[in-house]
């Protein structure tokens, strides 16, 4: 897993569905593993294959269309809702994506993505529609996601929009820092808090 994100320039895969829940991203029957690896092959399993059969890909599903490739997934609003399973973020990252773009992310998914160096980029509904239109019209359309300067652009047309991310998380992603490293480094402060925090 690449543990740093800065500027990503890639073609994109459109997934023009709203309310994509984590059960679709990775169905529950694949949650039985005890490691973090290998979830990518079951990413969107039941949307990708007829009757769970890898020899029968569903042709109309965008991840199966040869024209759509790249490390940016563009999805409609409320992406990642439902179950808190981090396996969803693992599957997307392992499936070759570094960025997911949507007009709206579910909270838990967003945190899980950030903790796995999968960048969730929230754009306006208008810009999202522009992205879908550009990609669908020409699958070779390149998208640039620039974390240091916090913008996303359609390279050919130059259309761009800025996106929000808090400074702490931005620093983590740019430098490959984990929350857990930070928390472990302030354990003494946590212990002091515990001493004072008696209800």
């Amino acid at each position, binding site marked *: 897993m690449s543990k740093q994100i800065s500027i990503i320039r890639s073609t994109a895969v459109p997934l*023009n*569905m*709203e*309310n994509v*829940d984590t*059960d*679709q991203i990775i*169905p*529950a*029957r694949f*949650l*039985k*593993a*005890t*490691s*973090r690896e290998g979830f990518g092959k079951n990413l969107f399993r*039941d949307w990708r294959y007829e*009757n*769970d059969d890898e020899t029968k890909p569903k042709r109309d599903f965008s991840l199966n269309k040869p024209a759509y490739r790249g490390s940016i997934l563009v999805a*409609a*609003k*409320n992406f990642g*809702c*439902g*179950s*808190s*399973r*981090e*396996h969803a*973020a693992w599957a997307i990252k392992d499936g070759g994506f570094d960025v997911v773009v949507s007009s*709206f*992310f*579910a*909270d*838990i998914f967003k*945190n*899980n993505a950030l*903790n*796995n160096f999968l960048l969730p980029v929230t754009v306006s509904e208008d810009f999202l529609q522009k992205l879908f239109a550009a990609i669908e019209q020409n699958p070779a359309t390149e998208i640039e996601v620039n974390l240091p300067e916090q913008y996303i652009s359609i390279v050919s047309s130059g259309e761009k929009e800025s996106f929000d991310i*808090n*400074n*702490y*998380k931005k620093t983590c992603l740019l430098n490959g820092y*984990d*929350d*857990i490293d*930070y*928390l*472990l480094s*302030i*354990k003494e*402060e*946590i212990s002091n*808090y*515990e001493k004072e*925090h008696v*209800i």
Partner: protein
Amino acid sequence: MGQTLFEKIWDKHVVKTIDGGPSVFYIDTHFIHEVTSPQAFAGLNKRGIKVFRPQQVVATADHNVPTLNQHLPIKEELSRLQVEALKKNCAEHGIELYGLGHPFQGIVHVIGPELGITQPGMTIVCGDSHTSTHGAFGNIAFGIGTSEVEMVLATQCLMQSKPKLMRISIDGKLNKGVVSKDIVLYILSQITASGATGYAVEFAGSAIRSLSMEARMTICNMSIEMGARCGMIAPDEITFGYIKGRKFAPAGAEWDKKLAYWKTLYSDADAVFDKEINIKAEDIEPMITYGTNPGMGIGVSGHVPALNEVDEKEKPSFEKSLAYMGLQPGANIKGKKVDYVFIGSCTNSRIEDLRMVAGFVKGKHKADDVEVWIVPGSKQVEKQAIEEGIDKIFAAAGFILRQPGCSACLGMNEDKIPAGKYCISTSNRNFEGRQGPNARTFLASPLTAALAAITGEVGDIREYYSKSELVNN
């Protein structure tokens, strides 16, 4: 300016706040289960560190466990390995485990409250989105991912940004046949499956105050289905009465001290919310979902939206959803044939739910072509059901009372609804494939599910009440 219930608890749990960033947020109680914890323990082991506060962690096995013959080894190898990994991890790190065979085993969100571990004013997390359930006791409780499970195991803290605050008030008197599941499905149908994303939601109002703890838990349980970070209800005498005397509840002087604090936990009259929603209890009907997210719900007497009632942008998702469900736009749901009835899950598997179902089905028998699975939320619920003779009522009705676990809510064990079949379910999610590949789910209350078990189709419980009242009179 006054404070909200959320702010009172939040402020007490902030260890420090990073400039322009999130806060280091302290967690009082951490529940873990077999599915979302193994990679977290692997992370600790890789770093060579132990669990920071093992006495603040409670474990159970629920997602993967069979609900028949729990005394036998788990047949499915991967499930067995996960349950064994939990056992090993808990032993190595000194964590209390209520595993298979333990009298306290059960669904994590059922056992926490029934053991008195869940209390007002706490912060509670678990690697499970339905952790919001615990908020019914007036605490901040939310689901987290496995990386965060690892953080809490390692430091008892998380990095959290303060969410916006929403209050949903339900005032008035509920109609007969309308129960708490209908309230939450109604809210979802009004505000959609993303209507509370980014918010902590407090449920308030006279209709909420009138509910039992079990009923309140059902509502907070499904606050995640609106996208809420957490759901909560201010504690009151009903809350205190429920907790008192439970296994891990405070007692004696400790009880008095805690109670005095708990009584300060409410939103002040002048507290300000970022968003307020008001609902009249009288407007709520028995509800049912027709689609593939919990926001796609209607009153049982209503109809699936027609195409011209759906926003243009939402049409692709709507049509995909109806195609999956095998339903037509504009169709009635009432009278729709069901194949399976599932009564269980962290939403509706508590003793009150089983009593509600038993009260209705007593002396009746299930429809011939319907299979009915009743899965109690915990060993304690199962024991109590047997003590009250509820198991006999179910047996006489042709229902199968299984053993505790998450079961057909997510079909991680053998309890899967076959492809194409319709299941009326008291669980929380009707997502595609949730109850098994290509299974079709109608979410409803235990009463509406019980009615379908008897008649074999979706019906309106209010008609039953009016008829029976006529007969009785």
